[in-house]
């Protein structure tokens, strides 16, 4: 068989080996870092969706003041991880924010599902402040996205005049 074909085969075997190394090894926690980066994107997506909803409707979903897991399950949503201690047994469903029954908010790549996303929300009613937390964050990191809704929910006088 020609050497050229053997070289091509070698290309595939090498790609496979590199891929296997990428997949199964976790050199310096690279995969955990990538997962954390994804979580950071996800919490931002969730916070942005809530903000867009608030701007559109001038109201907010009925958030709890204690940390509550996002998802559709009514029970079994308690979660205890390095970064979260969720005591509320029911999940808070925010999937409607996507405005499509076929879509969902992001779920944690390791611990989350559509039903229990692995992300938590907490709302400070006094400060009108929302915190979205990634409960599956690794390497001791805290991954959160925060939004203040004071300006959105209480229009300024100048805006009101308009």
């Amino acid at each position, binding site marked *: *068989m020609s050497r050229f074909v053997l070289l091509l085969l070698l290309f595939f075997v090498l790609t496979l080996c590199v891929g296997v190394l990428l997949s199964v090894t976790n050199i310096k926690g690279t995969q955990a870092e990538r997962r954390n980066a994804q979580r950071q994107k996800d919490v931002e997506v969730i916070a942005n969706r809530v903000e867009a909803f608030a701007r559109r409707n001038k109201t907010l979903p009925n958030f709890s003041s204690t940390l509550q897991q996002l998802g559709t399950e009514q029970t079994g949503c308690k979660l205890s991880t390095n970064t979260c201690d969720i005591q509320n047994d029911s999940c808070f469903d925010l999937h409607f924010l996507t405005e499509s029954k076929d879509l969902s908010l992001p779920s944690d790549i390791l611990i989350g599902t559509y039903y229990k996303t692995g992300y938590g929300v907490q709302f400070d009613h006094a400060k009108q402040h929302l915190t979205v937390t990634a409960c599956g964050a690794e390497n001791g990191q805290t991954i959160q996205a925060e939004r203040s809704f004071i300006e959105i929910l209480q229009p300024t006088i100048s805006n009101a005049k308009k």
Partner: protein
Amino acid sequence: MPKSKRTRSSSKPPIQHTALMNLWDKKSLGAWLQKYFWCIVILLALLVRFWKIEYIPYANDADELAYIWAGQSLTEFGMPVSWSSFEHAATQWYWLEVPSDVFSDQYVMRVKFVKPWFDHSFVLPIIMGTWSHLLGYSFPEIPPAVWYRLPFLVLAGINLTLVYQIAKKVFGNLPALFALSLLSFSPMFLLAQRMVVSENLLTTFLLLTIYFFFTERPLWSVILATGLAGLVKLPGLFVLPIITFALLAQRKYKSAALYFVAVSLFVLVGYLGYGALIDLPNFLAAMRDQSSRLLGWSNPAFIFSHPGFHTKAVLDLSYYLILFLGLLIFFVPQTKETKLLSLLTLASLFTIWMTSAEQDMLGWYKIPLFSLLAINSAAIFSFNLQTVEKSKKKALTIPLFIPVLVTLTLINNMGVVRFPESPFPEAQLLRMIVLGLLGVTLLFTYLESLKKFLPWILIAVMTLYAGQSFYIVDQYFEANCKDRTCPTPTVTLRQKVKDLFKLTFQ
């Protein structure tokens, strides 16, 4: 080199001139062509596979994306995530919105993902994930089809080379060239070879196993090739009992036992190791689920009645040409090699039967089978040669029905590309063509003096067959999508070349 030529060339110093003369020397050219013509065929085959590679199969084919997403997420996060049509536990549903900015149509806007995803083995996802990262795309972005299909162009080249090499080893050079050309320019097969599906990679390792076995390479190389075939997709293990029995028949009992045990362990450790690394209970549940899926009684009939290698049947007669000629392996005198090829063909057919649903079969399951059938198609020349030897004639004759069937395929395949405004041929024209073919066949059957032209006629029809495949590949998308909306790639080769020219000359 003859002495006189050397003297003549020494009187005219430029060496290039001599080389050029040699190339055009009839004898040298013939020898060169015999040696390297297969390379020309494979280059043309790659060219036709590359032409409009991003259009057909339609860009972002769901089954291709399954591998790409699984690979991206596996290499990026260490967790395979992709879409699935199987039943899954509630804990596995992980839905997500997919960015659709790399294609203009809205076919893959919303995808429901599962994690961990165990619908297929990890080998192809890992290759596609790595390739996707090299292209600069991360989960769940979809690379343009023109780029993500490129590794499969390489695989097609390897597979065609292996088909030729195996056929040459068993049946000789000219029959092998016929088998290679038949497969290289079969319109639907060449479109299937572009697809990112496990069967294309499985075929590589299946053919490597056969090649290593026939060329009596060290046993470890046969074990490795079979093991990889099994790792790419479990049905690839259909080769395991066939080679084991072939070794037993050669009274190589130790080798047979070693081969069987080593391949089985290789595959078992590979799969279980992967499952254990990700999520063993869900992996075992997926295996259980897949091994008890609904199958079909009448799959062999379905295969014979459904030409094509995708979900839709396409009336490409080269499918039946390969099928009919390939099945002739069962009628030629049985040697060690032909026996093995016929058993492998049967085992491949049975494997499709045992692993797919009736009337809901995914056409690419047939890729390994048809690669084997293409090798087998060379047998008809071998059979003919042996008959000729018996009758003490020296000339290589070609069975008349081969050029007739190829011509029939040429005529039939004009219907593969149909524009909605002219779907049918002129009735009288078609009648004339068909009657003409019948007339020529009659003449060649009864006029012995014409038979010496058969090789040239076969070469001519095979050239037309190759040319027609270029025409079909070029026009297929346009013809199919003229009266309907098809997934149209926004990143195309033509546009990339234009961009490159703009960048260079501005």
